[in-house]
């Protein structure tokens, strides 16, 4: 009965949201059509629930119950609060691109003097200008997932980044999503990055909340196209408010001999879901997807990866670590599909969960779907507590219980963190993990 009730409530809320938001959504004509289709898809499916296989462990009808109304465009006060939050989470040596309450904030961003290798526009501009090919690409995420469809219907802003062929961008591009905190509201953003042939770039995404921002909702998506011979390093850091919701998705395509290295770390938000579809469409490409969930309290974090090998001679590695304390709930779903033509695929996936409390929960679903015979594919999954003998060894050498645990946990998540190629970003992730451990007390 509950489920039905929840559905009607959200149904009600949804039409309200759209009525209010309609005149703030950029794009007309074709774009408006695509929005309508997406909205119809979302309305048909409603919020995902446990009977939808991909959302089995993250029932948004229970966890989120409803989609909040679209956040107002940030005023001067909001920008001020955002600037304060930005200072607290500043990363040295990056180029800032800031979105406040789902709207690009040029004053907080460093997008002038870009040079000829990179161009950055807002999503609003891209949807309002008439580049049909770009618009089609922006709408490439599939409406079959109801939350992706909602995002397509409601996306208000974001950034479109284009890296020229053969360009090497030394400074990481850092997209910061800030919730300024006024009223509980939802932000809908979509960004796109195209990495030209033989180019290389680093993209960092952070999600933070300004002081006082609590139960807001982030609905974000990212479209990535990596050209032949190009490389993209990607780091996601979710440090949202402990009452916030973060529902994000990514669609990544790789050309031939391309390289995609992605790492996600989740220490914030109450409920988060990140689903990435990575399609290896060119031969000789490499994908490394790694992630860490550090959860406590009643946090729920779901990482769902879908790796699609469609061509021969590609390799992929996935390393995922979850550390779950208190009543936290970590979910990892990893699907590797090797299509009939993708001979000589080398795909490996390893997911491990560490449970620190008897009320913590970790669910793993590592799937393999193999249609080609000349492949090496494997996955492993383990779940357990800290090894008592290792703890004893460290205690015997004078460490306190907490110190010993911290050291072992750090080593445990280190296996995923050390896959980050950029030194500064790796240090950053290590520091974030240490902060989390220190906060455990």
């Amino acid at each position, binding site marked *: 009965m509950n489920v039905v009730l929840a559905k009607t409530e959200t149904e009600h809320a949804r039409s309200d949201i759209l009525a209010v938001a309609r005149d703030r959504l950029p794009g007309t004509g074709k774009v408006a059509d695509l929005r309508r289709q997406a909205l119809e898809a979302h309305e048909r499916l409603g919020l995902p629930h446990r009977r939808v*296989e991909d959302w089995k462990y993250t029932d948004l009808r229970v966890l989120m119950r409803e989609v909040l109304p679209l956040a107002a465009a940030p005023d001067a006060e909001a920008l001020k609060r955002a600037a304060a939050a930005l200072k607290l989470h500043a990363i040295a040596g990056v180029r800032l691109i800031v979105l406040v309450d789902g709207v690009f904030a040029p004053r907080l961003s460093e997008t002038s003097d870009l040079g000829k290798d990179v161009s950055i526009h807002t999503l609003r501009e891209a949807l309002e200008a008439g580049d049909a090919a770009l618009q089609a690409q922006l709408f490439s995420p599939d409406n079959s997932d109801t939350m992706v469809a909602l995002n397509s219907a409601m996306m208000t802003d974001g950034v479109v980044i284009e890296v020229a062929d053969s360009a090497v961008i030394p400074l990481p591009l850092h997209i910061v999503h800030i919730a300024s905190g006024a009223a509980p509201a939802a932000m809908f953003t979509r960004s796109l990055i195209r990495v030209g042939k033989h180019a290389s770039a680093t993209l960092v995404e952070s999600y933070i909340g300004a002081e006082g921002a609590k139960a807001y909702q982030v609905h974000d998506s990212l479209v990535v196209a990596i050209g032949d011979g190009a490389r993209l390093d990607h780091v996601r850091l979710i440090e949202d408010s402990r009452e916030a919701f973060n529902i994000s998705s990514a669609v990544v395509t790789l050309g031939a001999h391309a390289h995609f290295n992605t790492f996600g770390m989740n220490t914030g938000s109450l409920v988060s879901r990140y689903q990435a579809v990575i399609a290896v469409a060119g031969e000789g490409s490499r994908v490394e997807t790694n992630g860490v969930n550090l959860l406590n309290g009643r946090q729920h974090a779901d990482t769902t990866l879908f790796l699609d090998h469609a061509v021969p001679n590609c390799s992929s590695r996935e390393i995922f670590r979850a550390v779950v304390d208190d009543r936290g709930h970590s979910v990892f779903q990893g699907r590797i599909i090797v299509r*009939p033509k993708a*001979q000589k695929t080398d795909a490996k996936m390893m997911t491990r*969960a560490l*449970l*620190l*409390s*008897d*009320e*913590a*929960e*970790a*669910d*793993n*679903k*590592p*799937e*393999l*779907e*193999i*249609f*080609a*015979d*000349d*492949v*090496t*594919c*494997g*996955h*492993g*999954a*383990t*779940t*357990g*507590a800290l090894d008592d003998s290792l703890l004893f060894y460290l205690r015997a050498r004078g460490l306190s219980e907490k110190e010993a645990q911290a050291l072992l946990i750090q080593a445990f998540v280190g296996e995923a963190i050390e896959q980050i190629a950029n030194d500064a970003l790796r240090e950053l992730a290590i520091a974030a993990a240490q902060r989390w451990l220190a906060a455990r007390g």
Partner: protein
Amino acid sequence: MAAVQETVDRVRRIDVDQYRYGFETLIESDKAPKGLSEDTVRFISAKKNEPAWMLEWRLEAYRRWLTMTEPNWARVDYPKIDYQDLYYYSAPKPKKTIGSLDEIDPDILETYKKLGIPLREVEVLEGVVRPEGERRIAVDAVFDSVSVATTFQKELKQAGVIFMPISEAIREHPELVRKYLGTVVPTSDNYFATLNSAVFSDGSFVYVPPGVRCPMELSTYFRINERNTGQFERTLIIADKGAYVSYLEGCTAPQRDENQLHAAVVELVTHVDAEIKYSTVQNWYPGNSEGKGGIYNFVTKRGDCRGNNSKISWTQVETGSAITWKYPSCILRGDNSRGEFYSIAISNGHQQVDSGTKMIHLGKNTTSRIISKGIAAGVSQNTYRGLVTAHRKATGARNFTACDSLLIGDKCGAHTVPYIEAKNSSALFEHEATTSKISEDVLFYCVQRGLSQEEAVGLVVNGFVKDVLQQLPMEFAVEAQKLISISLEGSVG
């Protein structure tokens, strides 16, 4: 890429048509009219002289079934089954009361002879080294839906073991059947189990009293023999405190054009310190080389380790059926109880296998082990789907899972879909899965030493599945090994 081309050619030549056990016995049979209604259920119940409570139980299941929808989550694809176009009951007409095996319809005996099944007491498998005290097998042969012969009854009776067709048990031991039937797989469990509860025709019932170690391996051979007959077996095995029983089940079916539905339910219950070992060799008709025909096998098998220190072990060799939908499971309720699942699933031609297990850890210090070996050849799809879950109170739960897949040819698919859910920190779960093909180097090595390509593949495959074969009772291990090489004939890559 010459090797690949060769594989393609060979796959094309698969001789699944030449199904070794494809023949039909012509015996008059006593059928219920086609289709399913309350009347069909009443007819079956009346045929079996069942008490009123049993009829009520069936009708309740039937009414429940009407409200359910067929599950579609498995990775199997088949034309819609018309449940009104099937016969739900057929039994060989009793010619006279059976006093001994000699009086059995010679046609039936001949059928078993062709299958190589040792029905008579003296026919203990040849060529098998007999352990001390001579191992014997009791066969409760199910021919179509009615058990036609039961051997070794006397000796079993002496030990206090009840081993009889479930229809007889309903009449003779209603208190036992009522106490246990439907307690592991409730009538409302799933679409196929509910259907089975409404229309099950027969099956085996085993009760091993406290402290008794069943003096022999029990085995039942199932065989589908009537055109358009849905086969709905119901098996119930109870091992009381400290009891032990090993049960063997093997199946073959004659060749047909139309698909046949099989929806069996097996329930196992172990009390304190008891153990049940359940082994299956399934070799039903898989359909012809175009994927036409073949058995649809939708089975619900579940064991309940009710008592502390009890154990249930499933071993299966699945080589037949067009569609296999089967997840033998263990509910580890008692403290220190143990569940095991050893599986070899071979798919060739157009076969589709979606099989695996569920290990549900509820009690303290419960352990489970899953070893699954999937081999896909031809244009078949082979899926392992498994669940391992530890609940809040299942402290000290342990699981080890290894599922390996072997692909022979590039037109088939092997899939692994494990669900691993841990809800307390002392649970320790380990899971690993690999997918690969037979190494060219290994094949070359074998061929160079004088083995034919097929022998080499047979050798490698038998090595691949060795861990599971070792779990089978001796008599089955021999049969299973033979089956594996027959199943893969013509699919060498």
